[in-house]
């Protein structure tokens, strides 16, 4: 860092240097025993003595404390005044003391005054004759009675008006409320007029002010001191920053060397987290079974008999996240200390803790309040996702349950090629999943929209009844209706018999691939159209009628009105939700699994791993929970996730709301 002849403060104003030694050095003169340095050392030793002498036992009475403070401040002003031209440190101390000298008397005075008033009120309360209250009460009671009588007559008048039907029941009600309030207010006022009550309230008020008024004035003093701290530069002999680099091994050390002690100590707490939790865990200490990040290398393969690769994997992922957090702490601590140190060399005085804490509360607010959520998301949402990502590249299958190694992209290749027991089914199931998603969702949308248009016809009566019935499938918990259908399609149950009556032959829905799939799509339409109906009806009702009137005048047919006005408006407003319906159905585990457990089970086509109505998500469930093909399951889950993410990204990055975020 090049040495300069001026110093900057936080606002960017330049100041002449007071330190003659540094000034000479900057000008290229090198004087071995600079007289200025001796003056400074002299000042510093005197200051040290002065400050130890200044220390007095803390007063217990606030009044005494304020006068002590004032006294100390006066002494400081007197002590620092001759040195103001010597150094900026002395100037700061001098000016801070001056602020105290100017402002503390006002606090002292306020405090004393309020206290006096309290004493006065208390003595007044004591001197109050006991009959004064009663007299006041009696007086008030007669006044209250008069008021009540007055209101009573008004009430009668209003009632009379109501009986003659000259005012509405609402007006009657409002008037009654008004009367009640009048009496209440009068009663409260009467209570205040009682001398003892009034004095009691006054005392309470004064006691509150005794606490709050000095606080407010203190805040002013603090604000002025903060200004001084940021306005008066600092001079140090240091040329290039080095202290902040100590924050890299020990967060907080650089801050302490910069003179920011409390901030430094707090940073050190974070250092504790780094050195006691994060780094040891990453190295494998304190793990449940795993070996930290190192455990990810060969995942317990060749390890102890009871070691499980899955644990090694999860703990490895946790260790990685902990390490990332630790590195982040190191980085933040260094960056902060480095900035402060560099500024200090330029002349900007480091902030006091009072300023720093205020900044943390103001500017750091969004970070502090979102921190718990971030931690939750990292450890409860991201860790399982990362584990699945890693698992999809490992070989957990029925033969290698507790110990398995890395296999790279083999699982994905098996899925793409359709090879292996589990991979062979992938494409077949994917095709049905797509048919199911497109069929069930599109049908739901069509039916729901169609019903909404039918019901929006102004000539149709009993709208609320139809509306309530139509939203029932949406309102009833999905798993109940699905299980209900499942039961009703068992042999000899309701819907099986209905179906037989219609087709004229006994059909066992759950034993036939075709019928199971067909009924699933119909059932999903039963369930899903309800929500679409609700959405579209809301949009339809909000379309202004003049659009249609204008169309009528222009001679549009009903079909044209539907396709040119209604459809575009409804689609435009519900599009994101409709897309959501497709992704929801793609992943609708409940419908598939609860209706027929993914069956019927056609072993010649599907083997033992899936049934013919299984969709990808229920296939993942079976692979993971029942058949021990966790890795293949994870690979499918990851493929689905990337698909969904791409889908969401396109829709999301185009949304207006997101582009507006600055």
């Amino acid at each position, binding site marked *: 860092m090049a040495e300069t002849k001026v110093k900057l403060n936080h606002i960017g104003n330049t100041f002449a240097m007071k330190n003659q030694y540094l000034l000479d050095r900057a000008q290229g003169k090198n004087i071995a025993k600079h007289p200025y340095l001796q003056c400074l050392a002299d000042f510093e030793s005197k200051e040290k003595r002065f400050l130890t002498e200044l220390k007095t036992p803390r007063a217990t009475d606030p009044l005494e404390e304020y006068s002590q403070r004032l006294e100390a401040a006066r002494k400081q002003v007197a002590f620092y005044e001759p040195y103001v031209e010597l150094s900026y440190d002395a100037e700061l101390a001098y000016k801070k003391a001056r602020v105290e000298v100017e402002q503390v008397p006002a606090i002292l005075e306020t405090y004393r005054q309020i206290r006096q008033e309290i004493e006065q009120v208390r003595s007044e309360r004591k001197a109050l004759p006991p009959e004064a209250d009663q007299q006041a009460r009696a007086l008030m009671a007669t006044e209250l009675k008069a008021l009540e009588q007055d209101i009573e007559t008004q009430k009668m008048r209003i009632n009379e008006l109501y009986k003659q039907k000259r005012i509405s029941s609402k007006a009657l009600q409002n008037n009654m409320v008004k009367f009640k309030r009048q009496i209440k207010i009068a009663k409260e006022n009467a209570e205040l007029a009682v001398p003892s009550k009034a004095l009691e309230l006054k005392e309470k008020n004064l006691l509150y002010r005794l606490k709050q008024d000095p606080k407010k004035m203190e805040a002013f003093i603090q604000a002025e001191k903060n200004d001084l701290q940021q306005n008066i530069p600092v001079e140090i002999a240091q040329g290039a920053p080095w202290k902040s680099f100590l924050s890299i091994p020990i967060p907080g050390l650089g801050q302490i060397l910069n003179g920011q002690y409390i901030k430094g100590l707090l940073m050190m707490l974070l250092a504790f987290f780094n050195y006691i939790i994060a780094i040891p865990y990453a190295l494998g200490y304190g793990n449940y079974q795993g070996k930290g990040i190192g455990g990810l290398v060969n995942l317990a393969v060749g390890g102890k008999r009871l070691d499980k690769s899955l644990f090694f994997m999860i703990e490895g992922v946790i260790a990685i996240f902990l390490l990332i957090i630790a590195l982040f702490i190191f980085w933040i601590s260094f960056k902060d200390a480095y900035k402060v140190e560099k500024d200090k060399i330029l002349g900007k005085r480091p902030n006091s803790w009072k300023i720093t804490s205020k900044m943390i509360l103001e500017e750091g607010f969004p970070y502090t309040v979102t921190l718990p959520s971030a931690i*939750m998301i990292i450890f409860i949402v991201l860790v399982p996702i990362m584990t699945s990502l890693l698992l999809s590249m490992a070989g957990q299958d029925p033969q290698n349950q507790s110990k398995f190694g890395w296999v790279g992209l083999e699982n994905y290749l098996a899925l793409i090629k359709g090879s292996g027991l589990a991979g062979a089914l992938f494409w077949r199931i994917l095709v049905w999943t797509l048919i199911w998603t497109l069929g069930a969702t599109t049908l739901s949308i069509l039916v729901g929209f169609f019903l909404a248009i039918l019901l929006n016809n102004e000539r149709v009566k009993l709208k609320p009844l139809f509306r309530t019935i139509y939203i029932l499938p949406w309102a009833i918990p999905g798993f109940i209706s699905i299980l209900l259908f499942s039961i009703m399609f068992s042999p000899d149950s309701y819907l099986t018999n209905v179906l037989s009556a219609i087709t004229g032959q006994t059909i066992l829905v759950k034993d036939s691939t075709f019928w199971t799939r067909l009924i699933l799509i119909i059932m999903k339409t039963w369930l899903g159209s309800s929500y679409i109906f609700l959405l579209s009806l809301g949009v339809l009702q909000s379309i202004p009628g003049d659009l249609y009137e204008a169309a009528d005048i222009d001679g549009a047919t009903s079909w044209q009105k539907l396709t040119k006005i209604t459809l575009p408006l409804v689609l435009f407003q519900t599009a994101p939700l409709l897309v959501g319906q497709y992704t929801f159905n793609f992943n609708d585990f409940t419908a598939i699994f609860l209706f027929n457990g993914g069956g019927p089970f056609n072993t010649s086509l599907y083997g033992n791993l899936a049934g013919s109505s299984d969709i990808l998500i229920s296939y993942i469930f079976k692979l993971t929970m029942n058949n021990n093909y966790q890795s293949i399951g994870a690979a499918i889950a990851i493929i689905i996730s990337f698909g969904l993410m791409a889908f969401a990204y396109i829709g999301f990055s185009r949304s207006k709301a997101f582009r507006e975020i600055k």
Partner: protein
Amino acid sequence: MMETKKTKVKAEKIYLSDKPPLSTGGMVLLALSYGILIAWAVFILWPIIQMFLSAFNENQYQYLTSGVELKFGTKHFKHLFEETNYLIWIRNTLFISLSTVLLTLLFVSFTGYAYSRFRFKGKKMSLMGIMLVQTIPSFVGIAAYFAMHTIIQQFIPGFNKHMMLIMIYSAGGIAGNTFILKGYLDSIPTDLDDAAKIDGCSNMQTYRLIIMPIVKPMLAIIALWSFIGPFLDFLLPRVLLTRSEDLTVSAGLFTLINDLRTINQPAFAAGGLLIMVPIAALFIILQKQLVSGLASGAVKG
């Protein structure tokens, strides 16, 4: 008065309406509309009515069969309360739901406020990040949840599977609900909080005194959705919970249909009815608010 006039007019057979009189074709179309509307209503109501009837029909045994004469009684409810763990399931679900609501509100009210009212480094990035993470469904982690629970239990004794479920539900809801709340808060001008700031309120005070009362309606909707979530979810309890007395209501009712030892379909109908009625009533009463909450989150992003 208006009505008497109308009837009079009707009596004189004069057509009085804003709408043009219906042509024959229109009549047919209207009749057709009514036909379709009524048919669909029957289609929706029929299974639900059958469920009601079988829950109260004492002539139904273990498996529901059609064509059984109705003998009204509460046998199946008795079976549900005395022979199964129904009440325990309800209690478990309530515990999980309420805790999820509390945690979600705690997290989301802060994050929504921060993302709506503050500018800070990394805002856009993190918003995009959580949005993408949020699109990954929770089933992706099913292979890890069980093992994760074992690991957490090692460090926090007493951390049971219900707590794991609560964590998964509330952490999973943070992203989406933050968006909903942010969208809602964005639509409210900042004048009120600016005024509070000028009057000397700190961020925390502004949050407590100004923001909280404003977002209460939206928080109520978020609370409602998070409350209902555990009642409706079937996958995660199925993955994590094994013992009958740990189950939530959805996984528990499934055992009344699926598990050969405990199968009793009319009891399922009875148990389903008991939770269906309050939830359906809630949805019907609050339909507008529930849909608007979803819509505002989706449209405003």
